[in-house]
């Protein structure tokens, strides 16, 4: 009985221990089946050492595929101190090759770390240096590929593209904004090591790096080159405080070119002042626009039917009184009697005060808002300004009057070009953009920007009238020096006095020119502004327009804008060259030809009395007294 009791209790304990042993097996199954992947991941991190292989950063391209930012492949030195057998020898060799002191190199070689980057001496090694290190064949000494950002065109589009830091991280511009797309996935050579860092004989794995995505901009490099070239000219000629230029396609809001002065070279951005680096003027600068803003006032007036610019007249006495303040026209004595078309051609301030008064503050300011002033355009770039527009409740008669001709308000260049784009494209206000698309390394487009219509501001009829008015300004008004024979150019100059601490500065102006080409159906809206140019007349028509003309010529060439004949003919000035169309004289006799070619100099080739061939051909426009070559038979 007693023994049986003991045996019973022995059996109980026996069972208890068997259960515990089974529990151990169950726990093992649980670990190996359910915690397997988690433990495997953690353990792989513990066991494996990665030699990082840097991925190439995505390229930045212009709209034609020209590379604006790419990568140079370099080699960097990596040490795995635990794998280095003869540390003394390695230190001596490397310090010699890299021209680093022994004690300095010793710090790297003897460092207690799994992987040591020899920074900066061992980075971006030349091919020769890399080859010499490779020849040593020391264990634990690795050379890995690294890539370095390179901007082949230096200053070109610097503010927009931006720049990257030493680890290829985007620090500014597109490089920063789209860093996550441009950055690739680093690859690695992965090897197993023991807890002391020695390599185990388990196979290495190689994970190849994946390049970042390419970003294609809406920029056209040839237009951009033209802008940059003229920016350099502006710097040399006028030594201005700042200058900026921007070209957009009014039909969709694509930025074709934009440039800022002062500029910098993103390949060595460290040498420049941070203010130069950070200010992408066409989107950042905010200032009183001056007369270019009259385009907005006039469009609003036409749209609201307060004036017929062809029929209604305005008499300019040279000044206008508003609430006791006298607002003067830029022309002493005034422009006299004018149609409103002439008011804009002459950029007559009192005429625009009148338009402002006809519209009233509610209507004028509602158009100012509708054209996008006072709010960011939403361009896909960092650092955009928003300008300052009077709140409606603070607009008195004086504010209404000055705003109408572009004073007392503050706007950004990008706001202006987008507003003018809407004025000339039939009334559509688009959101500007600079990234055309993003494609991965198989050239598959993964993201594409399309035009974004914000709102319709004016009717196509008003738009058409405005195009005519702007063309007329270039042909007959303040934009004359931008006139290009054979092409239809529209535009408006602006000269705004700069304000500092609430006061206008004397002899310190921002001169600007807003232009469209071709005026009948614009493919480009181009704006140029020069802040405080020196050594020039204080009128924009003398300073900006000749430069703008050269850029417009380039734009015409790049955009393949065809020659047109129906343009408004320019009024002649004393220094203007007269041009004539060459008549057809082929198959005419010499006497007849001479009469037809009265405005030209004739050069006769060959003998005979009948013209067999003429150069230039009939229909070409050439200047007065140009040479016409005739081949006789």
């Amino acid at each position: 009985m007693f023994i049986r009791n003991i045996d019973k209790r022995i059996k109980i304990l026996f069972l208890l221990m068997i259960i515990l042993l089974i529990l151990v097996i169950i726990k093992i199954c649980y670990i190996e089946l359910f915690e397997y992947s988690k433990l495997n991941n953690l353990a792989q991190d513990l066991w494996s050492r990665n030699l990082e292989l840097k991925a190439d950063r995505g390229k930045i391209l212009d709209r034609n595929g020209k590379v604006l930012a790419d990568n140079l492949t370099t080699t960097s030195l990596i040490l795995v101190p635990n794998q280095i057998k003869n540390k003394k020898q390695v230190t001596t060799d490397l310090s010699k090759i890299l021209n680093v002191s022994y004690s300095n190199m010793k710090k790297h070689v003897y460092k207690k770390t799994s992987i040591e980057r020899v920074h900066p001496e061992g980075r971006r090694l030349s091919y020769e240096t890399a080859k010499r290190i490779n020849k040593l064949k020391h264990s634990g000494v690795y050379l890995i590929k690294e890539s370095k950002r390179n901007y082949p065109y230096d200053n070109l589009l610097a503010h927009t593209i931006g720049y990257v830091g030493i680890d290829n991280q985007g620090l500014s511009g597109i490089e920063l904004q789209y860093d996550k797309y441009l950055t690739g996935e680093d690859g690695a050579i992965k090897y197993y090591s023991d807890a002391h860092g020695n390599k185990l004989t388990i196979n290495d794995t190689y994970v190849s790096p994946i390049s970042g995505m390419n970003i294609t901009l809406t920029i056209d490099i040839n237009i951009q080159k033209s802008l940059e070239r003229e920016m350099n000219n502006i710097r040399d000629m006028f030594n201005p405080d700042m200058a900026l230029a921007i070209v957009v396609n009014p039909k969709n809001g694509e930025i074709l070119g934009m440039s800022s002065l002062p500029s910098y070279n993103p390949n060595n951005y460290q040498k420049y002042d941070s203010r130069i680096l950070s200010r992408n003027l066409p989107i950042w600068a905010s200032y009183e626009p001056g007369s270019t803003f009259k385009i907005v006032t006039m469009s609003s007036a036409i749209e609201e039917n307060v004036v017929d610019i062809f029929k209604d007249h305005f008499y300019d006495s040279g000044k206008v009184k508003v609430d006791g303040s006298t607002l003067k026209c830029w022309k002493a004595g005034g422009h006299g009697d004018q149609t409103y078309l002439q008011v804009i051609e002459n950029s007559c301030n009192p005429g625009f005060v009148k338009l402002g008064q006809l519209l009233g503050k509610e209507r004028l300011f509602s158009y100012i808002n509708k054209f996008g002033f006072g709010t960011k355009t939403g361009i896909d770039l960092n650092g955009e300004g928003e300008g300052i527009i009077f709140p409606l409740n603070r607009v008195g008669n004086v504010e209404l009057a000055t705003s109408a001709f572009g004073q007392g308000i503050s706007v950004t260049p990008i706001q202006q070009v987008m507003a003018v784009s809407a004025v000339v494209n039939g009334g559509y206000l688009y959101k500007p953009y600079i990234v055309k698309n993003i494609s991965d390394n198989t050239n598959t487009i993964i993201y594409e920007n399309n035009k974004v219509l914000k709102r319709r501001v004016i009717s196509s009829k008003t738009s058409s009238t405005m195009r005519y008015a702007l063309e007329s300004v270039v042909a007959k008004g303040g934009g004359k020096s931008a006139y290009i024979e054979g092409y239809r150019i529209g535009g408006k100059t602006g000269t705004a006095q700069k304000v500092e601490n609430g006061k206008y500065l004397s002899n310190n102006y921002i001169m600007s020119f807003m232009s469209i080409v071709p005026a009948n159906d614009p493919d480009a809206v181009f704006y140029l502004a020069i802040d405080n140019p020196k050594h020039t007349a204080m009128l924009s028509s003398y300073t900006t327009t000749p430069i703008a003309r050269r850029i417009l010529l380039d734009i015409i060439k790049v955009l393949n804008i065809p020659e047109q004949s129906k343009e408004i003919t320019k009024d002649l000035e004393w220094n203007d060259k007269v041009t004539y169309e060459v008549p057809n004289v082929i198959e005419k006799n010499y006497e007849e030809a001479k009469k037809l070619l009265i405005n030209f100099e004739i050069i006769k080739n060959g003998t005979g009395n009948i013209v067999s061939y003429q150069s230039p051909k009939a229909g070409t426009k050439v200047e007065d007294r140009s040479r016409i070559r005739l081949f006789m038979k």
Partner: protein
Amino acid sequence: MKKIDKTLLLTIIALSIFGIIMIYSASNIWANYKFNDSFHYFKYQLVFFLIGIVILQIVSRIDYKVYYKYANVILLSCFLLLILVLIPGVGSIRNGSRSWFGIGSLGIQPSEAAKIGLIIFSSKYLANNNDYLNNNFKGIIPLLIIVLSIFGLIMLQPDLGTGLILLMSIISILFISGVNIKFFIGGGILGILGIIFLIIIAPYRMNRITSFINPWNDELGTGFQIIQSLYAIGPHGLLGTGYLNSIQKHFYLPEPQTDFIFSIIAEEFGILGAIIVVGLFSILLYRTVRIALNCTDLFAKYLVFGISFQLIFQAIMNLMVVVGLIPVTGVTLPFLSYGGSSLLISMFSIGIILNISKNI
């Protein structure tokens, strides 16, 4: 039965040989690093195994009644040794505990001897005092005073794992001897209070408990060993890496040939390795319990079961630590972990059981 239990003997030999094979795999990297000889631990364990077999053979031929006769002397010697080992200069410190006598890499732990000594004494005590079992003052209390003083001496080293095993194996004998269940409930409460007391006097034990629940809370501290053990068992799935292919033995798991040898077994042989080890211990348990059940001599019954329980309980504690079921206690896996003194004492214990198996 007039012959020794051959199945039990074969199981012991299988466990020991599997242990030696695994000690080689687990220790070759460490041995090469420390002694410039991959076979260092393997050779020592092999020698100890051979000595152990000789001891086993000899002990299995000594009539177990000798222990009954000399139980008091044995216990007294254990007491003296446990006191001696605490004296600096006499006992030496290894792994944080002053629990060794020894020169160089050879050493013996008196606490190992005390475990078997106390079982012998308790078996005799309980066999003689059957009638007083549930009379506290004549029955259990004197025995408990002896047990707890030995436990106290071991805790002074300190060696919680060994102390617990010793305590539990005596409790198991008390349990089967028929002591009233109320005693164990009371003891359990006292035990919990004791554990709380032990944690208060040495807070590092609390860390062991919290780190067992989530070892990643203190990844490089108290959770380190269990994490390293899980990194051995888990990442290769049910199949394991194959013999000699352990990664964790490359200095990740400290001294993998001792307490955590089962991690390496599970790493290299996966679930199969675990089943072999647990299976062999189950056979060991089954055969010894069978002998205990067949004993008519009460002393022999207690002795066999006490030894059996002590070995299996130690194995279970080790396995549960390694797989993360209980906090790290620092006990080795009998027959498999590297360690001469432990192996010899285990062989000695099995020798006693084998002798008893012959006499029933």
